[in-house]
């Protein structure tokens, strides 16, 4: 028995070490953002908000923040709409070529971003449509809609398939059924999808870097600072971005968790 507890303890220790590896950079960037040294080491320097003042006092970051906000909001709405319609198609219909439809719907995240970035740059340039804010929105919507689809599809799985037919029997048209049965039922997953896709878009840098031209987003600005010098401003910007992303993800998670008890209710 002691042998067993020892194995368990070793495994627990190892798992803790792996989590430390995963979270070390996240914690470090947060700590360094308040640290006075330009090249942080141990022992740490003194506490400062200098990097935050430098990052957010200048005027490089604010246009980028505006662009990022615009891009992620538009992307979230478009990707969630496309994801919803694709998820509903998969839930409701069976048709020739459905497998191909699903592959197309879920494929984008498996293509390396740098390749998709190059392809999109070439394609949009042909129509003189690269280097604009809308170019980034278009490309991000392609990348994000599979996530929205997955989240909404999971929710549709929990729906009683008879609900829809019941609504039709009671004389509701397809559109009324959609509006007063399906959309209310999937609402939590729609909100979750909006938050998740906004967070993904807000962090994406490779495609944004290639197609944004002069309309840089926040991650593109980070990439450019990173290419320059060691500059702890990145930690300050990164920590602020982290807070925004985590807030979005936690909201999404809360809405996802509200799905669980309802499932038991239905069962």
């Amino acid at each position: 028995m002691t042998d067993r507890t020892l194995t368990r303890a070793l495994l627990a220790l190892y798992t803790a070490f792996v989590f430390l590896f995963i979270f070390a950079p996240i914690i470090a960037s947060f700590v360094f953002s308040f640290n006075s040294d330009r090249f942080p080491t141990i022992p740490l320097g003194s506490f400062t908000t200098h990097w935050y003042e430098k990052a957010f006092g200048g005027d490089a970051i604010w246009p980028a923040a505006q662009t990022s906000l615009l891009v992620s909001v538009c992307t979230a709405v478009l990707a969630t709409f496309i994801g919803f319609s694709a998820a509903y198609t998969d839930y409701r219909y069976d048709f020739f070529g459905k497998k191909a439809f699903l592959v197309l719907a879920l494929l984008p995240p498996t293509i390396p971003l740098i390749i998709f970035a190059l392809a999109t740059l070439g394609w949009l340039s042909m129509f003189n449509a690269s280097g604009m804010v809308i170019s980034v929105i278009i490309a991000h919507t392609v990348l994000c809609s599979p996530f929205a689809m997955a989240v909404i599809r999971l929710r549709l799985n929990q729906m009683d398939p008879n609900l829809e037919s019941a609504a039709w029997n009671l004389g509701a048209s397809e559109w009324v059924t959609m509006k007063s049965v399906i959309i209310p039922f999937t609402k939590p997953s729609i909100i979750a999808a909006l938050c998740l896709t906004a967070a993904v878009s807000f962090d994406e840098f490779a495609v944004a870097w290639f197609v944004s031209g002069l309309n840089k987003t926040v991650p593109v600005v980070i990439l450019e600072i990173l290419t320059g010098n060691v500059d702890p401003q990145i930690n300050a910007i990164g920590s602020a971005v982290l807070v925004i992303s985590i807030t979005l993800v936690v909201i999404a998670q809360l809405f996802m968790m509200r799905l669980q008890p309802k499932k038991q209710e239905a069962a």
Partner: protein
Amino acid sequence: MWRLPMLIWQGLFFIGPLAFMIAMSFFLVKNYRMEPAFQMQNWVKTFTRDYFWSAYVFTLWMASLATVVTTLAAFPASFFLAFKVNETVRRWALFFLIIPFFTSYLVRIFAWQVILAQQGVLNALFGLAGLGPYTMLNTQFGTIVGYATLCLPLAIILQTFSLANIDTRLVEAAHNLGCGRFRAIYAVIVPLAKTGLIVAAVFCFILSFGDFVAPYYLGGSKPPTLSIMIIDTSKSGQQWPRAAVVAITMIVTLLTVAFAAIGYAYRKRR
């Protein structure tokens, strides 16, 4: 009608760009402007350069190494989360593992730069123990750290799911039949979770193969990988057609690896 939004959008902005990239690889560049053409020039020029092939082999090697390292590093942790903790702990662990996906990868790589630097945090810690300093930045080790940062959370999540789905009675049966604990792992547990473990590994390979941040900012681009080559030829050289050749070669490689691995994962399963 509901299938149309996805078909139109992904057709126009996903299939369209990828198809155009194939066409673009036959275009010519004159005076920094791309001209439609059908010439093999870009393919010939790329495939006859030694530095392309050395970059290809290096990228393949690094991505494979990252896949093996990540898979092996993740497995004990996934094993622990799948079999040795209760449902609540597992759920919280998985929740925490999702967080990295929504923190900027760039910021995490920058943090590693500072941690791994010659005068960085890690070397300071080694110094306290009277060791080092070690050169970790701008080495292959640095690149692998970056790839692991990218892949490890996903690998643990996927592995934990596939391990937790195993019917534990089969493992108990093996124990009852006198099977040792380590033998139970490689003779019962790993084969049962094979599909999920391979899918996790394939994702690691895809992510590392295409990533340009880790090899550039932690590996010092010595030597460059294919993804860095795409950036160099397209961003500074305006040679989009040649970058397209590299990109298509990468996609073909990824498809080959992915299909071979998935085929292997589903083989011998009824």
